[in-house]
């Protein structure tokens, strides 16, 4: 832990916690955690009314997180944490070796996890929008835009999609446990408090101003409202007519 390194560095300021994750990143992350079991439970028990509503919250969150990854705080931005395959390979190769420079934000491997989960959740939501249940009682808000066969296919992919997400979540959690047990690096704490202590002085991420948060929220809720209203205008550009 930092203590030994502190002695080496001799810097008192190094131990001061750095604001790493902003509130939007943390809220979105933990809402995902809460939503997934809820979505699974409601689907499994046939409460599709609630399932569709929770799915709409998921949609708004995914849209928001993608926007936030483009214009949000620096530690939330894709461009800041996504690395090329060579950097990822080098990072993986060095995982068991000596500590390198501290990474402020997602490490190159964690970055893949973030993007993979976000893409999967987004795909899953889109499939759900077009899907229908076997009783014809419940359907996603965009189900009416596609034919019966496409809607049935969407449901089957939606069912498969959950298992894929579950698999990636398991990998995600195992990786976090690995960092905790082997690397002695607690990743969960900072995702809750937003703060992390570093052994050496680091440059703190730049937090995005409130107006950007307001803009992203407005766009995300707007997207949610548009989809909930049946995505007016979308029918014209869909490849398959209903």
């Amino acid at each position, binding site marked *: 832990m930092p203590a030994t390194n502190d002695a080496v560095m001799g810097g008192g300021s190094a131990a001061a916690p750095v604001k790493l994750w902003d509130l939007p990143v943390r809220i979105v992350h933990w809402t995902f955690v809460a939503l997934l079991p809820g979505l699974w439970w409601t689907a499994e028990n*046939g409460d599709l009314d609630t399932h569709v509503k929770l799915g709409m919250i998921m949609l708004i969150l995914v849209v928001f997180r993608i926007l936030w990854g483009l214009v949000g705080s620096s530690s939330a931005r894709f461009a800041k944490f996504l690395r090329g395959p060579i950097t990822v390979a080098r990072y993986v190769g060095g995982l068991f070796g000596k500590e390198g420079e501290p990474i402020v934000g997602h490490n190159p491997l964690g970055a893949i996890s973030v993007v993979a989960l976000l893409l999967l959740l987004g795909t899953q939501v889109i499939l759900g929008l077009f899907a*229908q249940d*076997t009783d014809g*009682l419940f*359907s996603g808000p965009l*189900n*009416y835009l596609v034919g*019966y066969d496409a809607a049935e296919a969407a449901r089957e992919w939606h069912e498969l999609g959950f298992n894929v997400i579950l698999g990636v979540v398991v990998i995600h959690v195992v990786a976090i446990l690995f960092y905790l047990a082997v690397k002695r690096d607690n990743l969960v704490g900072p995702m809750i408090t937003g703060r992390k202590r570093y052994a050496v002085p680091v440059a703190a991420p730049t937090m995005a101003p409130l107006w950007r948060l307001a803009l992203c929220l407005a766009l995300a809720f707007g997207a949610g409202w548009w989809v909930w209203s*049946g995505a007016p205008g979308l029918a014209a550009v869909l490849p398959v007519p*209903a």
Partner: protein
Amino acid sequence: MTKPLIGAFLAVAVAAVAGATIAVAATPAETITIRQNNFKQIGRAQKSLSDELKKPAPDVAVLRASAQTLATFAPQVNRWFPRGSGKETGAKTGALPAIWQQTPRFNASAAQFVAAATGLQRAAATGDAARVRAAFPAVGASCKGCHDTFKGDK
């Protein structure tokens, strides 16, 4: 000369039809395939009603045609499940053993579908979309009522 010929044709034709019918009844796999295709027809009709009723001004002709499909299929449903056409065939089917263990209850569920589909057909016959809209939820409820007990995962 011609009479025996016609007779022979008839005999072949009858044998062909009979053969086809027997073949259909013979393999459980085919029974399951036909059953699933029929349920897909029901699903299509159900979806077309659902989609049409979402529009501000539903096309009554579409409602009528789909309601007719449901009313035609509904009375047949419980006959699509001869004993031995469940999971024991090894085919991919969601038909649960409860269908054959609780036959009276299964028939009662099927009868609810008949009642709901008949109600829908009557509503569609009036040409009043509002009546169809009012009669429609009972159909979905009858689907669910039966599926909850008698339909599992494939």
